[in-house]
C-alpha cells in the first residue's frame, strides 16, 4: 500500500467546507436583516383592498337632506375566467347578456374588446364592463349572473345632491391631488377628498375611516383569499352626518333672485351667528362636479369670464359704500367725536369736501344723517373723531403761542378707530369660522398712508373717503352681514359658521363699542326703511331696519348696489347683506332683494310676487347670463 503522504491536505479541505457555509450564512443574514426585501415581499403578495367608508350626509337647518350617497353598481368582467369557461364549452351568451343590460348585442360585443384596451388591463383582474347600474337593474342582473361566468358586481357610492343650489357653500369632492397626498398619509391615490365649502371644512367628520381587507395575491395576480382569515382586516367607520345652518328654501330663493346678476347674498341669524344662506352668483348645479360630469363642467367653470368658482360671499372685496356709515356712527360715538345729539350742517350738493346726494334739512342729527345717508355729516363726524384733540396751542421758540397739529395724537386716534372697526369684524377675516377660504377685507394702516403721503403728510381730509365707506375701506359680504348682525344684536356677535352642531363657535364676541351707542343706529336704520332711501321695500307686516349703499368702484363703472339690514326690528331673526355688482343704486337692487329674502325667511313665503318676478328676470350682468345659458345647455346636450 502506498504511504499516505498527503494527509495534511485534509486541513485545506476542512477550511473549504467550513468557510463556504460561513460566507453563505453571513450573506443570508444580510438579506434577512437588512430589511430591503421585506417590503417587496409584502408588495408582491399582499393586496390591500380598501373598503370605503360611506361619506356622511349633509342636512339643512330644518333637517332637509341636501347631500347624500347613492349606491350604484358596476358590472365587472374577468377575462381569464371568461376564456376558461369558453374553452370548457361554456361561452358567454352575448345575446342574453345584451338583453339583460338593455343594450344592443353589438355594443356588448364591442365592450369585450374595449375592456382589453383599458390601461392597466390584466386578464386576471376584474375590469369595469358597465358602470353606474341602477339598483333595480342590479337586482335583475344578480338573479342571472350565474349564467355568465367571469362576471361580477361591485358596488360604489356616488355623491348626490337633492337640490340644484348651494354649490359654493356645500363644496364638492374630488380625487385627491398628488400635493395633498404628500401631506396626508392616511389617504391613498384615487381617494376622494372634500374641496372647499362644507365638504372641505368637515372632511374629517364626513369621510369617516376607510377599512382595509388584506388579500393574498399569487404570482399571476389572482386573489387567493383573505390573509389569516381577515385577522388583520380593518372595518370601515361610517362618516358622520353634518347638519348645516343653511336654510335651503331661503338659499334657493336667493339664488333665483341673483340670476343674471353678479353678486352675493349672505344672511345670518344674529342670535347664533348661523349662516342662513350664502349665495354667490353666478353659481352652478352641484351635480356638475360629481363623477363623470366633472370632466365636462370643470373646465367651463374654470375658464369662464364671469369666474363662477370664486365664492364672492366670502372672497370678493367690495367698498361698503354708505352701509359703512352705520359702523362709522358707532365708532365715532365710542371715541367721543360725536354724541347722539351732535348736529352738523349740510349744504346739500354744494357741500365741501364731500357732496350730499340727498335732499334734507340742515343741520342734521346722527339719526337723521343715517336715514338720509348724509355724506357731509359723516365726513364731519369722522374728522371730529380722528382729529379730536389734535389741534393744540403750543409755544414756539420765541414764546409765541400757535396752534399746531399733533400728528402723534392723530395717528393714535386713527389707529384706535381702525382697531375698533376690526373689533366690529372689519379688516381681517374671522379667525374662528368653519367656512374655508374666507378672504380679508381691508382698512389701510398708518404705515400705508405714511408711505404714500409721508409721516406728517396726511390728515382726516386726506382720507375723507373712509368716512363714507369708500376709499381704502374694503369688506367681504360676510363681514357686512356680520356687521348687520352686530347692530341687530345691539353690540355682540357670534362668528358666522355653517355647522349647526359646532358648539365651539358659540362664543360671543364683544366689539369695543359700548352697547349704549347702538340704539341710535338701530333707530336710524329703522328710519331708513320707514322714511329714507329704503322706504319702498318694507316687508309687509314686519318692521325692518337697513341701510342702502351705492358703492363707487372706478371712474366709469356703474356703482355696486349694496344693502345691509335685519328684521324684525324689535326682535331680529335675520340679518342680511346683499351686494349686486355694477347694478346701480343700493335702493333699486340690493334693497328689494334683501327685503324679499328676509320676508321669505320670516314668513316662509313671498307676498310680492311681481317684485320677485321683476328681480328674477332682470339682468344686470350679461356675462353671467351667458354663462348660465351655456352651462345649462351643456347639460341638455349631454342628455
Amino acid at each position, binding site marked *: *500500500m*502506498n504511504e*499516505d*503522504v*498527503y*494527509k495534511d*491536505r*485534509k486541513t*485545506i*479541505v*476542512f477550511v*473549504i*467546507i*467550513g468557510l*463556504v*457555509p460561513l460566507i*453563505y*450564512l453571513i*450573506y*443570508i*443574514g444580510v*438579506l*434577512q*436583516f*437588512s*430589511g*430591503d*426585501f*421585506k417590503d*417587496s*415581499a*409584502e408588495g*408582491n*403578495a*399582499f393586496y390591500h383592498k380598501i373598503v370605503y367608508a360611506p361619506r356622511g350626509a349633509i342636512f339643512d337647518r330644518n333637517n332637509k337632506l341636501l347631500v347624500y350617497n347613492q349606491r350604484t353598481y358596476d358590472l365587472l368582467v374577468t377575462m381569464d375566467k371568461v376564456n376558461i369557461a369558453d374553452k370548457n364549452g361554456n361561452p358567454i351568451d352575448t345575446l342574453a347578456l345584451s338583453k339583460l343590460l338593455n343594450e344592443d348585442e353589438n355594443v356588448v360585443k364591442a365592450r369585450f374588446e374595449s375592456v382589453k384596451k383599458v390601461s392597466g388591463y390584466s386578464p386576471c383582474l376584474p375590469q369595469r364592463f358597465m358602470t353606474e347600474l341602477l339598483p333595480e337593474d342590479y337586482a335583475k342582473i344578480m338573479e342571472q349572473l350565474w349564467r355568465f361566468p367571469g362576471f361580477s358586481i361591485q358596488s360604489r357610492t356616488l355623491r348626490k345632491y337633492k337640490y340644484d343650489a348651494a354649490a359654493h357653500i356645500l363644496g364638492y369632492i374630488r380625487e385627491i391631488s398628488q400635493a395633498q397626498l404628500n401631506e396626508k398619509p392616511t389617504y391613498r391615490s384615487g381617494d376622494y377628498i372634500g374641496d372647499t365649502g362644507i365638504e372641505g371644512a368637515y372632511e374629517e367628520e364626513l369621510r369617516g375611516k376607510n377599512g382595509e381587507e388584506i388579500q*393574498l*395575491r*399569487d*404570482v399571476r395576480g389572482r386573489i*387567493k383569499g383573505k*390573509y389569516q382569515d381577515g385577522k388583520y382586516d380593518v372595518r370601515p367607520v361610517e362618516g358622520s352626518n353634518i347638519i348645516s345652518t343653511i336654510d335651503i328654501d331661503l338659499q334657493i330663493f336667493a339664488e333665483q333672485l341673483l340670476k343674471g346678476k353678479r353678486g352675493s347674498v349672505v344672511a345670518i341669524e344674529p342670535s347664533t351667528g348661523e349662516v342662513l344662506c350664502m349665495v354667490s352668483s353666478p353659481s352652478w348645479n352641484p351635480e356638475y362636479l360629481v363623477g363623470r360630469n366633472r370632466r365636462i363642467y370643470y373646465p367651463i367653470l374654470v375658464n369662464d369670464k364671469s369666474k363662477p368658482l370664486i365664492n364672492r360671499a366670502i372672497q370678493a372685496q367690495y367698498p361698503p359704500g354708505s352701509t359703512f356709515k352705520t359702523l362709522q356712527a358707532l365708532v365715532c360715538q365710542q371715541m367721543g367725536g360725536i354724541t347722539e345729539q351732535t348736529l352738523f350742517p349740510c349744504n346739500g350738493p354744494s357741500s365741501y369736501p364731500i357732496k350730499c346726494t340727498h335732499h334734507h334739512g340742515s343741520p342734521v342729527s346722527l339719526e337723521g344723517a343715517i336715514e338720509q345717508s348724509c355724506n357731509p355729516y359723516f365726513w364731519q363726524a369722522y374728522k371730529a373723531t380722528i382729529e379730536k384733540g389734535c389741534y393744540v396751542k403750543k409755544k414756539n421758540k420765541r414764546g409765541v403761542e400757535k396752534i399746531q397739529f399733533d400728528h402723534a395724537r392723530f395717528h393714535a386716534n386713527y389707529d384706535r378707530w381702525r382697531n375698533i372697526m376690526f373689533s366690529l369684524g372689519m379688516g381681517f377675516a374671522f379667525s374662528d369660522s368653519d367656512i374655508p377660504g374666507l378672504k380679508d377685507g381691508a382698512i389701510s394702516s398708518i404705515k400705508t398712508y405714511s408711505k404714500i403721503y409721508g409721516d406728517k403728510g396726511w390728515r382726516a381730509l386726506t382720507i375723507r373717503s373712509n368716512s363714507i365707506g369708500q376709499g381704502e375701506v374694503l369688506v367681504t359680504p360676510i363681514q357686512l352681514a356680520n356687521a348687520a348682525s352686530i347692530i341687530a344684536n345691539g353690540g355682540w356677535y357670534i362668528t358666522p359658521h355653517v355647522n349647526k352642531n359646532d358648539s365651539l363657535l358659540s362664543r360671543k364676541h364683544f366689539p369695543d363699542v359700548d352697547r349704549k351707542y347702538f340704539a341710535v343706529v338701530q333707530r336710524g336704520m329703522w328710519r331708513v326703511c320707514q322714511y329714507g332711501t329704503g322706504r319702498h321695500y318694507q316687508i309687509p307686516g314686519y318692521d325692518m331696519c337697513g341701510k342702502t349703499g351705492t358703492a363707487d368702484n372706478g371712474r366709469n363703472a356703474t356703482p355696486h348696489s349694496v344693502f345691509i339690514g335685519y328684521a324684525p326690528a324689535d326682535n331680529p331673526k335675520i340679518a342680511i347683506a346683499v351686494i349686486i355688482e355694477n347694478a346701480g343704486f343700493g335702493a333699486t337692487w340690493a334693497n328689494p332683494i334683501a327685503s324679499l329674502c328676509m320676508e321669505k325667511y320670516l314668513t316662509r313665503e313671498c307676498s310680492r310676487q311681481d317684485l320677485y318676478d321683476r328681480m328674477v328676470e332682470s339682468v344686470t350682468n350679461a356675462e353671467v347670463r351667458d354663462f348660465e345659458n351655456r352651462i345649462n345647455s351643456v347639460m341638455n346636450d349631454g342628455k
Partner: protein
Amino acid sequence: MASEFNAIKHVDKPLLVIYLVLVAFGWLNIYSASVTETQVSFYEFSSYSGKQLIWIAASLLIAIVIFSIKNNVFSQLAYVSYWPMMVLLAVTMPIAMLLGGDTKGSYSWINLGFIKIQPAEFAKYFVTLAVAKCMSEYSFQLKGVKNYLKAIFLFILPMGLIIMEKETGTALVYLSFILLMYREGMPGLVLLLAFLAIVLSVLVLRFSSVMFCSMEGVPVGLVVALLVVLVVELLFILYYYYNWWSVLYIVSAFVLTVIAFVVFRVILGFNVNLIYFLAGLNIASGLYLIVMSFLRWRIGYFWIAVFVIVATVSTFSVGYAFDNVLEPHQQNRIMVALGMVDDPHGAGYNTIQSKIAIGSGGLFGKGFMNGTQTRLKYVPEQHTDFIFCTVAEEWGFMGALVVIGLYFGLMYRILVIAERQEYKFSRCYAYGVLGIILFHFIINVGMVIGLMPVIGIPLPLVSYGGSGMLGFTMLLATLLKLDTQREERLF
C-alpha cells in the same frame, strides 16, 4: 446477508442522524412549498409531498439492501457496474426522445409510465465507486500524464454524456472529483490556477463595460486582469527562485511601458490602446523568462513564461468565449449572478423572487406553511432546486442556520470518516462523496441566495426528486457501510 446487516451496530451515528433530520425537514418544506388548496391529506400520493414520501421509503429500502452487502463487493463491482451505467446514460437521450420528448428542455429523463427516473442523478454513485477504485489501485499514483488521464477519463465520460442530454448543471457536478484528486496528490498549484482562472474571468466579464479612465476600448476588467497576471508572475518568480533582479527588471519595464503610453497618448496625441501596451508587456516578460530558462537552465522559468503567455491570451479570449461558446440563457444567468444586469422579469426573475422570499423571512421566519412568497408560488421550482428559499422564508434565519449547520455537520462527518479509513478505496470513495455534496451545496445555496448563476442542481436530501434522493442515499449508505469495516477488524 443478515449477519452483514449487523454492521449497523457500528454505523456512524452522527452522520445517520444528520441524514434522517435533513430528509425529514426537507420533506416538510416540500409539503409546504407544493401543497395546493385542493390537496386533502399529507399522503395524497399524486402530490409532490406524497410522491417524495414514496421515494424516501424506497431510498431507505435501498439503504438496507446496501447494508446487507459485503464490504469488499463494492470495490469489486465498481468497474463492473460503471460500464452498464455509462451505457444507460448513453441511451437515455434516444429513449427520452422516443418516449415523450424533453422535460424542460432536457433529455435526461426516462418516463416509465408510473415514474420518471433521471439516470444522471444516480450515475454519480457508480462513477464515484469507479473513480475511487481506479485511484486506490495498488500501482496507481497521481503522477504522469497516463495516470491522470485514466482517472479523469472516468468522470469526463459521464460528464460528456450528460451534457449531451442537455443537463449541464448535473454534468458540472463531476468536476467535484478534483477535490478527491487534490487529496490524493494532485499539485495544489492546479487548484490555485483554477481559482485564478475563475477570478480573472469574473473580473474581465464583470467590468467589461466600465472603461478605464473613460478611454474608449479599455475595459477596467481587462486592465486589472492583465495586471493581476503580471503580479502573479512576479510572485511565482519570487516564490520559486527568489530572483529579485528579474522582478526589478520587469517592474522597470512596466514603468517604462506606462511612460511610453503616456508619451504616445497624451504628448504625441496618437490614439493608442493601453490594453495592447499591457498585453505586450506581459508577453515580453514571458519571452524574457524563456531566455532566463536557457541562461539559468531552469525549466521552472519556462513554465512561468507559459503561464504568463497563456493567461494573457486567455484573458483576451474570455469575452469571446463568453459570447460564442455559452448559450444566451447561460450568459444571462451569469450576468445576473455577477450583478451586471438587473432583469427582474427575465433571467433575473428567479433570483430576485428568491432573494425577496429569503429577505422577508427575518430572524424566525413566517412560520411553517405561512410563507407568503412560497405559498403563492412566486419562486419557480420552489419544491426542487429552490427549496432552500422556503426554508429561509418560513423558518427564517434560524432555519437557514440549522440547515446550513446540518450540511456543515454532514460534510465534516464525511471528512472525519474519510480520514479514519484504513483502506485507500474507502478514503477515495468518501472524498468523492464529500466533493459531490460540497459542490451541490455551493452551487445550490449560492444560486438561491443570488451569489451563483442559476444552475439547476438540487439541494442534496432536501430538494424534491426521487432519483436525486435515491442517488444521495446510495452514496451515503455505502459510505456508512464501508465505515463499519473499521469496527470489524476489532473482532
